Each structure stands twice: as C-alpha cells, then as structure tokens.
C-alpha cells in the first residue's frame, strides 16, 4: 500500500476507527472499506484505463512514448486470478539477505517461455513461438516483434545471440557449460540468427528438458541480457584495454567480475530489464531497503489489453528473522510466502484480523525431512551394509513417524517417502508406500537376517568386523520448518530400540556442504524436494559431487570417470535412466525414464522420508487482489511467489 510520509496506513485505520466523523471520513471509509458498493462509479472509469496513471503523466509531459509504441505488436496476455483492478500502490516485502535475488525471480522475471497456469508445461512468453524439431535437439524461437527494454531500446535476436555466444560461450565467464545450456557431451549449443526475431539453437543431442529449464525463473531469466548496455563492459565489443581500465576504476580486479556486477539486475539500477519491475535503489545500500518501480515497456497485458503490472512499486527491506516475523504479524508486509516460518503461523493468525491481512496456506515443496544414508561410504563394510535394501528398509520401519508427527506438528504433518507425489508427471500408482509403516519387530528380524545378531554391552548390534552399528547423522539445524533436532532426537530413540546407535551432529551449513562434497559422512539429514525432480536431478540421481546420497558416485558421473568412484550397479541403473531421460526424443520416452527412477527409489528406499509440513503460511494484505487461492506449490523452480503471476496483483484501493 502507498503511505504518504508522516501518515501511515495504520494511522488512517485508527483515524477511521471512529475518532473523527465528517465528510473526510465518509470519503475515506468509502474507498478503503466498502469498495464494491462505494466505488463502483469511480472505479468504473479507472478500471478502463489501459496504462498506469503515473505513466500517462509521463506521456503527457513528453518523457515517454505513448502506450501503443511501448507494447509489442502482440503483447503477451498474463493469466488472471481475479477480476478488474486499479493501477497503483506500493507492495511491501521483507527478506533476510541483501544478496538474495528471490524477489527478481518471483516478481520481475522475463524469459522466452514460462510455466503455464498449472505449472506443468512451458508456454511462450517473450517468445511468440517456441518450437523444436522431432528429436528435440533443435529449437526455433520467434520473439514477439516490437519488444523493448525498460529504457526503450528494441529487444532483438542480437540480444539473445549475445547471451548464448558472448556470455555462455565465453571461457572466462563460463569455464564450463552449465547443465541448463549444454548438450549431453557438455558442449555449448550453436545459436544462429535467422532474422531479427527468429533464432535457431542446435544441441548435439536431444535435449527435451531445455524448455523446462528455461521456465525455471532462476535459469530462464539469465538468458535475457541487454547487448546495447553491456557491450561497453565486454571485450568482444569494446577494446580490451578500455574494459580492463573501467573494471579497475570501479574497484574490480578483472573485467568479468565488473561485467557480472553490471549485469546484476538486483544490485545495479542502471541495467535495462525486460521484467515487470526494475530496481531503483539497491538493497545493499545503507538503508537496507530496495525500491523497485514498474517497467514502462513491460510486454504483458491483461485480457482487456491493459498494460501490466498493476502495482506501481515494490519495496523490499532486509530484516532479521524475528523482525521479519513481527513485521508480518504487524501487517507491514503486503504479500509474503518465502522466509515466513511455519512455526510462527499462530502469531500471524492471532494478529491477522486486527492488522488487516489474512493467512493463506500454500503447498510446501521440499519440506519432507529425510535421512539419506551415504551409498558411496568410505568404509567398505558400511557401504556394503547401506547398499542393502533390507537394511535401509529396516531403518525406515524402525521409525515411529506418527509419534514424531503428534509431538512436533500436532498430527498435522504428512508422513511419506521421498518420491514424486500424486499429480507430478513422474508419479505412478503405488509408489512411495514401501517401509512406511512403523514395525519394530519387522525391522528387528530383518536386521537379524542380515547377520547382525551380536550385540555389545549397550545393546548395539555389531557388524561382522566387530564394530558397532554406530552412525553419525549430519545436518544443518533449522527451526523455521520442522524443528530438525527435535525430530531427529526421536529417530535416535527409535533406532536405539532396534539396536542401532545414531549420534546427532548439527553442523554449520558450510561444514555440512564441505563434509558432503568430500564424501565424509555416514547419514545426511535434509529436506528433499519431490516435484519436478528433472529440474534438479541431483536429489534423486547422483549427477554430481553435491549429491546427498552418493557424492563419490556423483563425482564419477560428473567428471566422466576422472575422479570419484565407480558407481555400484544399483546406482548405475539410476544414472542410465537419467541419461535416457535427458536425451529422450519424445515426451513419452522421457516420462517413462523418469517413472523408472521414481519406481526404483520407491522399491529400494534409498532415502528415508519422515515427515513433511502440511502447508506453508502466506501473508496477504486484505487490500491485495488477484492472489490465487488454489493452494499452489511454493517451489524454487516455479519462482516461489511467481506461481500467482505477480504482475497481475493489484490493490483494491489503487493509488
């Protein structure tokens, strides 16, 4: 909401609560509270506006071309989650880190394609047409004609080529091709300009996942960079000496770091953008507050041809977790899902009515707390043990999930194993049910059958070598979701009942990452995402040394056998399915391979799921319209709040 300095919305409300009676109050209350009846007449004319009044003013002053000249020939039409809306207002948010670009991904991404309303398949966005050849190794993209950057310069195929050849193809800035823009042989694809709006991209192998990668805002947004602005910082376009001198003058020790700095839309207010908002003041300034303003050339409209976004400005403040929670409870945050803690929901609910907001419940993605035994363990005996399905199954069956659920989430949590959930394209009937029921007897007899019958004086089972079954659970402690130490402590007791000793080791996130990537841990404790695993396969298939289940095997796969260790037959099967998936020549073949991976996980129980959150809280100002109410998924690969297409959000009161 807009607040005029000196008179906040809060004092407006208090004012309205009954201190002053009179004409002023009537008008005030009329437009603030009784919107449907009171403002029908006024709103009728305002909702027919095609552009924001603040832009109309600039057009009249001659500082901006008229709307028709700013929009592309065929503007993209944004999905709508509500009715007609007014232009104006400032949407306030908070976040924990100054460097976190989540807001840009959620509110201001522009990409060739984006997720459709159901978040299932990519639909054209900056592109008007996005087609592939039969085996999905060649993509032809037609940009909308008349697209413009936020400074009014045209957006053309040259900008796209610039990204693909001079940025992704530059060895200094991209020492190795990123997974989201490389063929199976790790080469960078060829990009070719067919006309000013048509680009052809050729991979050396089928790449069915590319359109999906592009739809992920954190990836797709990186393909959009302004050549006309950035060319002055790139040695392919400007003399190397000049480029180096500029970098040095700005305090950077090499030109590519300065280029990255100039290219950062979240911290550099000068770089032109294609998204709905551009940064005016960066969050790393001393005020710790970022201001964003609408992009007058934004390429989307609503169904009536009204240019989006509706909301004029965004304001994002950097806050500590406690301050952010209190701000949310105080009604100071207009629309926020990320960074809110599940355990603080009660505080939000208690203050919601009083402070003019409501709390929605969205679907969590990746809140499933799990145990991941290290399948590529350094100790051959432990590796042997962890590679046995019966052993992993016994671990899983020994855990009394309902008891954990009752004591930590009041029974509201969802008990499941980490596989694709119902509704995901890689889900098939019957997966995810193995070893889920609590059955200590079955676990005990399974362990006995594995020959782990000897016990030491503490009742801990012994391996053949005489070493006890004593494992360390490595995890990063966190309390904003399911309190990890509490949950894992209950697992420790459950496992002790079947003769397995588990020691908890909460670690700093850096130490945690370091131990994992050097294959130096027994069991990893983490939350596992379940939907759209193909966008981040490392969770289910050890594709890299950062795998949670088998880092040494992942390193082998990523380095093509140069480092790491050769995967076991089991894991090789997963990797083969993954290779089949990412080079599939049809959607059917791709989905089949993905289902095979999920089926294998379900059968083998590589990761042991415990409990997932029932929902994530979302705080929404009562004045904010058009937030979707069908409990969408709050997922990183969907751009989090982006699922509700923030460009079409609007304030009931407008300005």
């Amino acid at each position, binding site marked *: 909401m807009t*607040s005029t*300095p*000196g008179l*906040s919305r*809060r004092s407006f409300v208090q004012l309205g609560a009954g201190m002053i009676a009179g004409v002023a109050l009537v008008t005030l209350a009329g437009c603030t509270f009784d919107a449907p009846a009171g403002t029908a007449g006024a709103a009728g004319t305002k909702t027919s506006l095609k552009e924001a009044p603040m832009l109309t003013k600039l057009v009249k002053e001659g500082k901006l071309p008229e709307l028709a000249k700013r929009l592309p020939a065929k503007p993209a039409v944004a999905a709508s989650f509500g009715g007609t809306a007014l232009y104006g207002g400032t949407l*306030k948010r*908070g976040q924990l*880190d*100054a460097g*976190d670009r*989540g807001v840009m991904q959620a509110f201001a991404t522009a990409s060739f394609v984006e997720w459709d309303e159901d978040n299932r398949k990519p639909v054209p966005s900056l592109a008007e047409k996005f087609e592939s050849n039969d085996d999905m190794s060649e993509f032809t993209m037609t940009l909308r004609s008349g697209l413009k950057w936020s400074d009014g310069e045209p957006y053309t195929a040259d900008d796209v080529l610039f990204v693909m050849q001079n940025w992704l193809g530059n060895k*200094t800035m991209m*020492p*190795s091709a*990123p*997974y989201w823009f490389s063929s199976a042989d790790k080469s960078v694809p060829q990009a070719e300009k067919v006309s000013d709006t048509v680009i052809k991209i050729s991979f050396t192998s089928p790449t069915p996942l590319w359109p999906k990668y592009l739809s992920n805002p954190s990836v797709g947004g990186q393909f959009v960079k302004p050549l006309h602005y950035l060319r002055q910082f790139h040695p392919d376009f400007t003399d190397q000496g000049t480029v180096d001198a500029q970098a040095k003058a700005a*305090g*950077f020790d090499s030109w590519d*770091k300065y280029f*990255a*700095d100039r290219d*950062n839309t979240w*911290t550099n207010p000068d770089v032109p953008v294609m998204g709905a908002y551009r940064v*005016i*003041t960066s969050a*790393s*300034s*001393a*005020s*710790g*507050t970022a*201001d964003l303003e609408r992009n007058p050339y934004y390429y989307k409209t609503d169904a009536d041809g009204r240019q989006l976004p509706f909301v004029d400005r965004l304001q994002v*403040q*950097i*806050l*500590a977790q*406690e*301050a*952010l929670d*209190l*701000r949310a409870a*105080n009604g*100071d945050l207009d629309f926020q899902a990320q960074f809110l803690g599940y355990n603080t929901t009660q505080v939000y609910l208690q203050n919601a009515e009083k402070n003019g907001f409501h709390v929605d419940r969205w679907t969590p993605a990746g809140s499933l707390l799990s145990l991941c035994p290290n399948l590529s363990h350094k100790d051959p005996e432990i590796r042997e043990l962890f590679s046995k399905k019966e052993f992993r199954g016994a671990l899983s069956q020994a855990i009394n999930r309902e008891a954990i659920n009752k004591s930590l989430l009041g029974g509201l949590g969802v008990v499941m194993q980490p596989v694709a959930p119902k509704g995901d394209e890689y889900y098939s009937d019957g997966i995810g049910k193995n070893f889920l029921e609590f059955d200590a007897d079955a676990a005990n007899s399974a362990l006995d059958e594995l020959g782990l019958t000897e016990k030491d004086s503490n009742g801990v089972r012994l391996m053949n070598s005489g070493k006890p079954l004593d494992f360390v659970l490595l995890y*990063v402690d966190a309390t904003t979701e399911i309190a990890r130490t509490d949950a894992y402590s209950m697992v420790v007791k459950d496992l002790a009942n079947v003769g397995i000793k588990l020691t908890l080791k909460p670690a*700093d*996130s*850096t*130490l*945690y*990452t370091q*131990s994992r*990537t050097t294959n130096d841990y027994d069991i990893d404790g983490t939350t596992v*995402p379940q939907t759209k695993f193909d966008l*981040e396969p490392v969770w289910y298939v050890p594709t*890299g040394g*950062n795998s949670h289940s088998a880092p040494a095997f992942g*390193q082998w796969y*990523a380095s093509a056998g140069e480092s790491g260790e050769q995967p076991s037959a089991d894991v090789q099967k997963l990797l083969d399915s993954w290779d089949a998936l990412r080079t599939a020549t049809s959607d059917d073949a791709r989905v089949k391979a993905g289902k095979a991976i999920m089926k294998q996980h379900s059968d083998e129980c590589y990761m042991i799921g415990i409990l997932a959150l029932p929902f994530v809280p979302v705080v929404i100002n009562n004045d904010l319209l058009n937030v979707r109410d069908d409990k969408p998924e709050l997922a*990183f*690969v969907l751009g989090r709040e982006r699922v509700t297409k923030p460009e079409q959000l609007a304030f009931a009161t407008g300005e």
Partner: protein
Amino acid sequence: MIRFIGARILYVIPTLFAISLISYFIIQLPPGDFLTSQIASLEQQGQTLDPAYVDALRQRYGIGEPFWVQYGKWMGGILFEGDLGQSFEYGRPVTALIAERLPLTLILGVTTLIFTWVIALTAGVYSAVKQRSFADYAISTVGFIALAIPNFLAALLLAYAGFTLFGASIGGLFSPEYANAPWSWGKVIDLMNHLWIPVLVIGLAGTAGIIRVTRANLLDELPKPYVVTARAKGLPEGKIIRKYPLRIALNPFISTAGWHLPSLFDGEVIVAQVLALGTTGPLLLGALKSQDMYLAGGIILIIAVLTVIGTLMSDILLAVVDPRVRFGKA
C-alpha cells in the same frame, strides 16, 4: 612528553601487524571457503550448483592459494593502494560498502556514547555521594539489570513492546516510506523514533561498569584528608567534589574512554543485527558467516586499528590530565 608519545606510537606498529595477521588467519580457520558457503546458502535457498562449475570458479578466483600468498596480496593492496579488496558476496569494493554505512553507524555510536556517559557519570557520582541511600541501591540495581540482560534479548523485548503497544514497525532505523527518501525533517524525526531503542539498549548496558568504577573511586577519595580540609575551609560541597576528588576518580574512566572508539565504528553487532540497522555491525556478521574474507578482514582490521589508536589516545589523555602518569610515577 614527546618521548612518551613517540614510544607509544612505536609500540603500535608491531601490534597492528600481529593483529592483521591473526585476524586474517582466524577468518580462514573454518572449513571451506567463500564458494563453499555460497553453495551452502544457495542450497538453503533451494538451488543446486554444479560442483564442476564451482571448481572452475575456485581456480579463477584464486581462492585455493596458500595463506601467505593471499595475506601478502591483501596487505600489499592496503599499504600501497589503500585498497581493502573486493567483497565476494556483494561484488563491490569493501571501502565503498563500509563508507555507505559509516554515517548511520557514527550517528548511532556517538548518540549511544553520549547517552551512556551522561547517565553513567551522573549516576556514579550521585550514588557515591549518597552512598547506601535508596537512590544508590536503585541506580546499582538498574545498572546491573541492564548489564545482565543480553543486549539482543533486551532489543527484541523492546521491539516487541513497540509492536504490541504502539504498533511501531520493527527493524531498520527508518520507516519503510522514509528508507530511501532524501533527508528531510520528517526523516530526521522518523530516525529519532527508531534510534531510541538501540541507544537505550546499548547505552544502558554500558552504564553499569562506569557507574561502579566512578562510585568506587570517588568513595576512595571522599574520606581523604584533603577533602576534609577543603570542607573545613568552608568550600561548598558541590565545588569540593567537582574540583578535587572527582578529577582523580575520573582517571580510570579516561584510561578506558579511548576503547569506545572501535565501538563507534562497529555499532554493536548483535543488537544491530536483531534490529536490522543499516550499520557496519550486520555487515561484519554476514561477512564472517559467508567467509567473505576481504570484507570481514577489512572491518576487523579497521576495528583493530581503532582499538589501538583509542588506547593510544587514552594513554595520551591520561598523561595530559594527570602529571603523575607523565613522569612515570603512577
């Protein structure tokens, strides 16, 4: 006097060298490096980075170089070019990041220091003069409570009280509408509205020490014969205390006054973090957490230099006000 100052300045150089070496070493101690923490934080935000790609970056940024080489480059930059290096996290020069936050940090630091001194000295003198009175006990109790409550907790409690009782917006030194606005009267008033919480929390916590020291020293002096003599001569009580025992009792206060110099600069890290103040404190904490070596190293080095300079200033001040120190007799 000049010899005294010269000798003190000579001590400063090896001290600073040792501090810079140790602080750089300590920052390097935790496992991993900036890129590992970067991967870790991206993972917490839900993103996975390709490890092969990270390895390539590590080589390019020279993060894997031996300690001495890194330290040499860093010190060389500082001594010869006044360049504190680049922050990895912000991708900006460290000097620019610090300079941006300096004005607010100084406003907070100076206000807090004045607040502390005014309250503490008055209270200390008063409780010594009125020893064992109700006021004396009350002052001591309040001082100890303020000292005993962890600052961040007090800050949270006050913030929560502000939220429930006054509906104040929590965090930051400005309301959202003023955060990036140019300076105006409204903004100054808005700053005052937010400044009192950190000033009260940090300031009160600092009073207890000074109150106790001032009180104890003054109590030592008050029964001495020269005070009795002055009183016998008929000097007014206020004048006696101000002119003689207080001046002696102030020695420990002056000898520690310089120590406040660094605290003006770092602005109480934890309180600033909890209240989301745009001072250098949260910058330092964030840099330490993400192993942003040059940023953390730069801030710590400045704090160290200020501590040493502060101590030097105290030494000199003490020598100026107390001749016994100047001649090495006390």
